[in-house]
Structure formats: structure tokens, C-alpha cells
């Protein structure tokens, strides 16, 4: 039996990508793998949304891209964070922390509280 994988909350994919890319130059396939590994296989990014997201971030100049040969010897498109992307990631981290705290407070406090 497969455990249903949760949907990514709207808008969080961009943040996850930025976070993964922040570690260093990385290509699309590896980004998907990293997200899966880091989330212990809880989160799965579908290719159909990964690549449009990458192109969107590149278009918004949050990511830079460069073709170089990967460890397997073939040419791949490697993404890196731009200065603007790093800034964006910083503010998204703060936002996310606030959002997560808020949601957690509601989800925990709501339990058993008298209406």
C-alpha cells in the first residue's frame, strides 16, 4: 500500500528550489532528487511543474543557468542562485517560519479548545 504523498502548498515549490540550489550549482534532475531525499520521500516534485518553475525563476533573474558537464560526463544545465535569488530566499525563509508557526499554533491550540 502506498502512502498518499501530500500536495505541495501553493508557492512553496519556488522556495524549495531556491533552498536546494543555494547549496551550489545543480541540475534539474538532481534538484528533484534532493527534494525527495531531504523530505525523506515525503515530497515528490513532478517534472511537469519543476521545469516551468525553474524557467520562471530564471526569467525572474533569481536563478542563473549554465551548461557544463555533469559527473556522468554528459552536458547538463546547472542552476545557481543569483544575488537577487539569495535575497528572495532569505525573505521566503522568514515568511515561511512565520507562516509555519502561525499554522502550528492554530492546529495545536484548536484541539479540544472550547468553542
Amino acid at each position, binding site marked *: 500500500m502506498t502512502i498518499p504523498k501530500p500536495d505541495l502548498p501553493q508557492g512553496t515549490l519556488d522556495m524549495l528550489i531556491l533552498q536546494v540550489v543555494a547549496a551550489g550549482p545543480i541540475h534539474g534532475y538532481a534538484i528533484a532528487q534532493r527534494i525527495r531525499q531531504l523530505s525523506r520521500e515525503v515530497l515528490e516534485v513532478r*517534472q511537469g511543474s519543476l521545469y516551468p518553475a525553474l524557467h520562471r525563476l530564471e526569467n525572474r533573474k533569481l536563478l542563473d543557468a549554465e551548461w557544463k558537464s555533469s559527473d556522468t560526463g554528459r552536458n547538463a544545465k546547472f542552476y545557481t542562485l543569483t544575488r537577487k535569488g539569495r535575497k528572495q530566499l532569505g525573505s521566503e525563509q522568514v515568511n515561511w517560519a512565520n507562516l509555519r508557526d502561525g499554522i502550528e499554533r492554530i492546529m495545536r491550540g484548536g484541539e479540544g479548545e472550547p468553542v
Partner: protein
Amino acid sequence: MSWWRRLFRRRKLESELDAELRNHVELQVRDYVKAGLTHEEARRKAALEFGNLDLAKEECRDAGGIRWAKEFAQDCRYGVRQLLRQPGFACTAILLLTLIIGANTAIFGLVNTLILQDLPVRAPERLVELLSLYPGDPRVNSFPPDYYEYVRDNNTVFSDLIAFSGFGSAQVGRGGLETETVHGQYVVGDFFRALGVSPAIGRLIDASDDQANAAPVAVVSWTYWQNRFDLDPRILGDRILVDGSPATIVGVLPREFFGLQVGFRTDLWLPATMADERPSLGLLGRLAPGVTIEEARAEMNVLDQSRVENWARESDDPLVGEVKIDLEPARAGSATLRDQFANPLLALMALASLLLIVACTNVASMLLARGTARRHEFALRVSLGAGRFRLLRQVLTESLLLSAVGTLFGIVLAYLGAKVLVRILASGRPQVGWPGPVEIRIEPDIQILLFTAGVVLLGGLLSGLAPAWIASRTVPASSLRTGGRTGETRSQRSFGNGLVIAQVAVSLLLLSSAAAFVLHRSNLLNNDLGFQRESVLLVSLDPEPSQRDRLFHLYEELLERLKTIPGVRAATLAAPSPFSGGAASRFVEVEGFDEEPESRRRVLLAWVAPRYFETLGTPLVAGRDFQFEDRGRPRRAIVNESVARYYFGDSDPIGRHLSFEGGAELYEIIAVARDAKYLDLRQPPPRTIYMNAFQEETMFANAIALRTDLGPAAVAGAVRQAVRSVMPSVPIAAVTTLADQVDASIVPERLIATLSATFGTLGTVLAAIGMYGLLAYTVARRTNEIGIRMALGATRRDVLRMVLQGTLGLLLAGLVLGVPIAIWTRRFTSSLIADLSVGSTLPMVFAATLMTTVSLLAVSLPAYRATRVDPLHALRHE
């Protein structure tokens, strides 16, 4: 990724996208194989997981901004194909856009050069020009030399006072080479330092060069350096002779610096101390930090009082007391040409933008009609999934394509047009304060390019946006159902009607302004001249001063000889010749006439030979003409009616005497001539006293005037021959006609009349084409309906009425809208052109009549076609 990379390296981006996505699948396969799947299975699984590759690509294109580039290229290709399919439409539209872009850019080029462009000096916005205003004269920047020192030493508002003086032309020779004529300027002290101009090579004139015993130096312009010295840097240190006095070239001015008087060429710059006598000076001030032009004006008004008082003390002219000083911003250079041409050019700019509107409406209605014709196509595309915005973009791309091609031709046209404009501007006679011939260089610069781009975009959008919007609102179902023969939607119809109304209104405005300008010019040329302007040849001679004693005899012989040339009715001499721009004037004293000192005015003086009045066509109202035999007898004079009226009232002036202030001679009045203009068409005829040139001590009337039966040019050859045989040593300086000389005195009026007439004609033709197009289209569309009506018994007259009603309604609406606007704008045009007769309704009536006539002509053909509809044929169509 920049936009141009998206646009032009699209293929590379596409292949990169493809490689990236394939790479992903390959890596996935590799991992699956590592995990133990067979190659086949791994490939299948990976492909399955990835999903639709093309869909992913499409989404990536969207997200990465490749899509719009792809679609833009598509739109362009498609647009070009569409336009090629209808070359007639494309050519008409491009022609229209070429005309308006060309006209607007050419005029803007002049406006930019004369009015907008900053001088290439340090902080040009702090420069102000000092202008002296003598009542009734154009203001001039010309002051006595010691006034410069006085203002420099006493003012507190200028950080620098900049002084210069034109010396017209000089003969420049160099090391035995042929001399040539150059235009030059004297500069005072640290002229260049105060302006903040640095040399291209060498050094510029500074205060130490402008000393009594300094070594004579000269600085040349870049253009002169280029034309005469081939940009040879070794000219530094070269010695030249300027009108015979030596000077050493020490530097070259930067390429962009042409001097402070825009529109005039200056080749050579010398320190003012090199002038033979101290020249009068043009003055510019640089406002001291924190000082406003109003403060400077206030202080200069106070300082200037001493100049006016000194002048008034030395002069008997009561008007000198009313001389004023004015300060004007000079960031674009001296006002010399601007004062004369700025207003006409601005008026033309306004007219050209009106023309832009008319032409854009025309292109818009053409696009609209095409949009209707293409509804089927649009409907099909909408049903195949094209977005509305996409259709909008498609149609807009087409109209911008048209504009772009129009721009290419328009720039060529603008170049030629600007040359013609400059030629008209330069055709005028020199004015007071002009240092030399007008020479305007219009160089394409960023302002002109921006302006053109603005016009193009505006043209493209104005003409394309509304049709595109309407086309994009296609409802596929209804359009497809009824096939190609659909009626137009309401919005299309009312928009098309609106376009025609706007065209009629704007064209009316164009036409009535043009008519007003043309009428103004024709009034100037024909009303109350006091002489016959046509068929008079003017030939000026340039005798050596040493010959003057013999000239009386020679001129008399020459005039006798000229009379015998076939086609010459009368010949005479005049100094100065009428409308040459020069004039002499003096105060006159009449026996028995007393006047207040304040009301004294100078009278205009002219020295003429016998038969002058016959030649010019100015009748003598009393008395008799001068004679050659008057020479050596007591002096005689002929006065015009204004003089007679003012000094003698109702009494008979003939036989009375007058003298000129400062002259001992007493002149007996022998005749009264009809009032005639002599100097300026815009002023009423001045009080004029004519004297016999043959009674003066020396002969200085060097302009021959001949009244001819044929065109004046036809006798010019014979006249030259006569001059050569009678006075072989006297060179002919110039041959012209009186009509040309008069024309040269009203260049601004001619410029605006000629161009506005062209624009008005164009606008009218465009409006007519618009109406024709609309009605032709309406008739074609309603052929079925007309057929049915006729089958049901409608007569031809009914059909005609039905077809014409709508169109004439539009015409009427256009006129009703246009007339009040035109009346309202007359105030604006009259503020631009002095003495424009705004009260006259003639231009308006003319414009409305012409507009109506042309519109009726335009609609007559389609209307006629409507009455010829064959009901059977039309119905079979159904």
C-alpha cells in the same frame, strides 16, 4: 536572459530546453537501471512519470518568456504575408505613414535645431541674452562697445558677461594661395572660457589675446578646418591674412560648436582688438549662482537707464527715449532667427500633427474595413483556441509593421523635406542683426530619433488599436454561421462613422488654417502695395568709387539704351531699391510747419532716376516727374500722399519747400506720388520723400529697375549686354526681380502659407478617400439589401437617398464639430502670426465649401454604383 536573446536566439533556446528535459529522463532511466530494472522497463517507467513532454515544454516556454518571442516572430511573418496579399492596401497605408512621418520629422528637425537644442557649452540653462527694443523694430542684440564694459563693471547678477560681434565676410588668404570669403566673428576677452568651450586642438582665444599689443591670433571652426585644411593638425601656427592683416591660427573649435547664433555659419574667430574700429557687440550673460532671470531683468532695467539717457541726449529721435532692454533665456542660442521663425514653425508643427491625426484615422478605417473582411478568419482562429489578446496583438503587429516601413521611407522624406524647408528659410533678405547668410545644419540626434519613434508608435497605435480591439471581439459562432457575407457589428459601424466625422472635422481645421495663412500672404502681397510688383527686373551694378564722377553721364546713356530693348517699357534707377531691406531716413523740416519734439518722426528717403514712378507703377497724383535736365538746378523732391497729408493738410504741397535736418539744401516739391510700401509689407506705407538721384553730388543709385512687357527674365540677357557695352568696366552684382525681392521680405509668411496649403490639400484628399472608402464599402456590403428594395419597388432615387443620407449626415456632423473648433483655434493661430486677419470668415467658408464639394465628389461614384444595382443579379447572389 535578455529580450533580444529570446527574440533572435530562439532556436538555440529551444534546443537547450529540449536537451534539458531529455537529460532529465535519461538520468531517471539510469537510476532505475541501477535499481535493478531492465533497460526497457526503466525507459517506460521514466517516460510515464515524466508525462507529456510537449506540454512540459510549452509550460517552460511560457514561464521562461520564450513564448512571446516565438509568437512575435509568428505575428510578423503572418503580418508580412497578409500585407503582401493586399499590396494596394499596404502601399496606400505605407505612403500615408511615410508622408506624415516625413513631414512631422522634417519640421521637428528644424524646431529642434532652432528652438530646443541646447548650445554645446557649460550650463547653457544659465545663459541669458540681452536684447534692445526700439519701438516698432524687431529686437536686436547689439550694443555700443563701452556698454559692455559698463554692464560688466556694474552688474551684480551675471557671473560672466559674454560679448561677440559678427564681421560678416572677410577675404582670407594663406601663403600665396587664392583668397576666399569666410564668415567670422570677433570675441571679447574670455568669451570661450566664460562659455566653457574647450578646443578640439590647440588653444582658444583668451583674455590675454584681446589686448591692444597682443600678437594677432585666430581660431577656426571644425567645419572650416575640415573643408579647407583636411583636418590637418599642422595648421596650428599657420599664418593667414584676414582682409590683409596677418593672424596666427592657434586652435580649432570642437565639432559641435557653431557659435551662439544658431543658423549662421562662423568659420573664423578673432579677438575683438583686431577690429579696425570698436564694433558694436552682442551680449550674453551667465546668471550668477542663485540669481533668477527676473532678478537679472530688474537690475538690467535699472542699469540700462543710462544707456537710453545717453542715446536720447545725442539723438533728436523722440522714440529713443522709449527704447527698452529685455532678457531672454539663451540656452538654445541667440534669438536672432528664433524671433522670426519660431512661431511659424510651431504653427507648422501643430498643422503637421493634425495631419498625423487625419492620416492615422485613414489607416485606421482601412484596417477596420479589412478587419471586417477578415472576420471569418478571426472567428476561425478563435474557435481553434486563439486567445483574444493574441488576436489583438496580431492586428497591432500588422499596423506597427506598416508604421515601421513608413518610418524608413519617412526618414528619407524628412531629410529631403528639411532641406527644402531650410532653403525657404534661407531665401529671405538679411535682417538687422544677422551676421551673414542663413545656414542651418540639421543633424540627426537623439531628440529627433526619439520624436520619430514617438510619432511612429503613436501612428501605429492610433491607427491600429481600435480596429484591433474590435476585431478581437469576434464572436465565432455568429460569424462562422453566416459565412463571409456578414454584416458589421454595431461597434464597428459607429467606430467607422466616428472616424469619418473626425476626419472631416480635423481636415476642416487644417483647411481653414491653411486658407487663413494663404489669404494672409496674398493680402500682404496684393493689398495697398502702391506699386505693381510683377514684371520688374532689378539689376544692381557695382561700380568703383573712383568712377562716380563719370557715372551720371553713363547712367543716362544706359537708361536711354535700355529703353530701346524690345519688351522694356521703362527703365530707371533707385537707391535703395524697393524691398532690398536697406533704407535711409531723416528728420524733415518743412517751412511753416511746427510740431512737438515728441511727435517728430523720421521720413523714408529714396533717390530715384526719372521715370521711376512709371517703372514701378506708382502713379503721380499731382505734379510732374523728375528730369535728367534737373542736374545742376535747384534741388527737387517728390513726396508721397502721407507726407503731403501730414505736413500740408489740405493745402497744395507743390511749390513748397522742405529741408532735412543737418542739411543745408532746400528742396522744392514738384509732385505728389501715391502712397507705396518701400521697406516692409507688414507696415502701412511710410512717409516717403523721393529725390532725383541725378541732382546729388555723387551718383550712388546703382540699382536699375526695368518694367517689362514679357517676363523679366526674357530681357535679362539684353540688359547685361547693354550694361557691358555702355560701362564695360562696371561689374553686375546681382540680377533679380522685384517680385522675388518682395517675396524675400516675407519668408515666414511664405513658409507657413506654402506648407499649410500642402497640408490642407493632403488632409482634404485623405478625408475624401476616407469617405469614399466608407461609402464604397457600405454599398458593396448592402448590395443584397438594395437589390431586394429595388425588387420590391424602390426607385433609383430612393436608393440614392438612402445611400447618401448616411454619408451626408457624417459630413454635416464633421462640419458642425469642426467649425467651432476652427473658430476657437483662430485665436491661437493669430497669436503665432502677427496681423493675421482673424476676423475674416472667408477661410472658414472656403474650407467648409471645399470640404463639402470634395466629399460629394468622393461619394458620387459609390452612390452611382448603388443606383446601378441589378435586382436580379443581387438576389441571385443570395
